């Protein structure tokens, strides 16, 4: 199969959707497997690695429309997780007027369980930590392609519904020159 044919197939897949429920029901087994075989700390890192890999594959066919991290997050939710509620963002710190620390709050996380009682009993690991790694990879791709004013980006999940919190939260740290 040629690369061009591959790209046609990828385009067809990219233009299609599946039930989000499939992810929500498959993830508990993945989480349990990682926790049992790898331990807390390594499982958290594994989830981040998975998030990076997923983002790299998404970038084969998709590029964010904006370099603004909040707009990137909103685009991801709108395009890839249809019918989920939008995120809320709060700028916590600024550097010369530009946002340097942003709090993202999601009350309708696409990954975390929706029903009470399905949360992890361990709060030290964040259920949806792969999402912050996913976003971090996308923001760093934007930096590499000179589409941002910030020069470094890190994202960290600090709370997740799947681990017993009220909402999923991530902190985006942005660095600027000067």
């Amino acid at each position, binding site marked *: 199969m040629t690369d061009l044919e591959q790209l046609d197939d990828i385009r067809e897949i990219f233009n299609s959707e599946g039930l989000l429920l*499939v992810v929500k029901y498959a*993830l508990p087994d993945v989480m349990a497997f990682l926790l049992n075989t790898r331990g807390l700390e390594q499982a958290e890192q594994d989830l981040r690695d*998975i998030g990076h890999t997923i983002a790299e594959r998404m970038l084969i066919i998709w590029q964010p429309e904006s370099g603004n991290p909040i707009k990137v997050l909103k685009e991801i939710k709108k395009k890839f997780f249809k019918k989920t509620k939008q995120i809320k963002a709060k700028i916590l710190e600024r550097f010369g007027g530009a946002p340097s620390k942003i709090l993202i709050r999601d009350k309708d996380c696409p990954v975390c369980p929706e029903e009470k009682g399905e949360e992890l009993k361990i709060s030290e690991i964040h259920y949806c930590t792969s999402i912050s790694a996913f976003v971090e990879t996308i923001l760093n791709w934007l930096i590499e392609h000179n589409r941002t004013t910030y020069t470094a980006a890190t994202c960290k999940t600090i709370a997740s519904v799947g681990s017993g919190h009220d909402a999923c939260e991530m902190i985006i740290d942005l660095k600027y020159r000067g």
Partner: protein
Amino acid sequence: MKFTVPEKLNVFRKLLARLGKFYYWRKPKKINLWLLSSMAYGVTKKYEEIFKGATGKAVDTFTQHFVNGAKAIMFQMQDRIKILYSQSLEDLEFVASIALYVILGPNWKKFFSQPVFIPADRTDNGIAQFRIKFPICALCAGIKPGIDLDPQKMEEYSYGELLAAALAHLLQMVQDYVGNDYNIEIKETKCKLRGDSHGEAVMFFHPKKN
């Protein structure tokens, strides 16, 4: 009201299912299919690392995890969808097409051909079969064989079998519920990663031994 499993689905039940599939597809939250495919790849690669390069074991473990998820969904929905159950194996063609619509929407036909049931008296080994082809494999697309995943290291396991394996378990649940004594075995007979022009999976309906 007690639910009686019919021998065969009648026109009314099929009509209800045809209408119901639109509702069950439109209402719930969706995920981009390429993102779902990328998630499966990301998890499989991590499992491959955990199993120290044993790709087959990684694929098999993730398939089990995915199928467990699919079974949990089915279990939760069973009361609503059992109107689709019948004792007839021929009806499974219809049931599978409805299930694929509910999971993937109207685009399901891009990724799966219409499933075909072959009765036991028309197969070489006397075992009833259910064949399904994947013109576009939503899992294998974009994977460079030997670079991203090595088919040689998959042993008897198949990466593209994931969705078909979930479907096979769904059909097994139907068989168990209606009281048909079959064990469904799934085999991927063609795979794009192994050089075939399309993917294909066959489900074999082995009669349970008493």
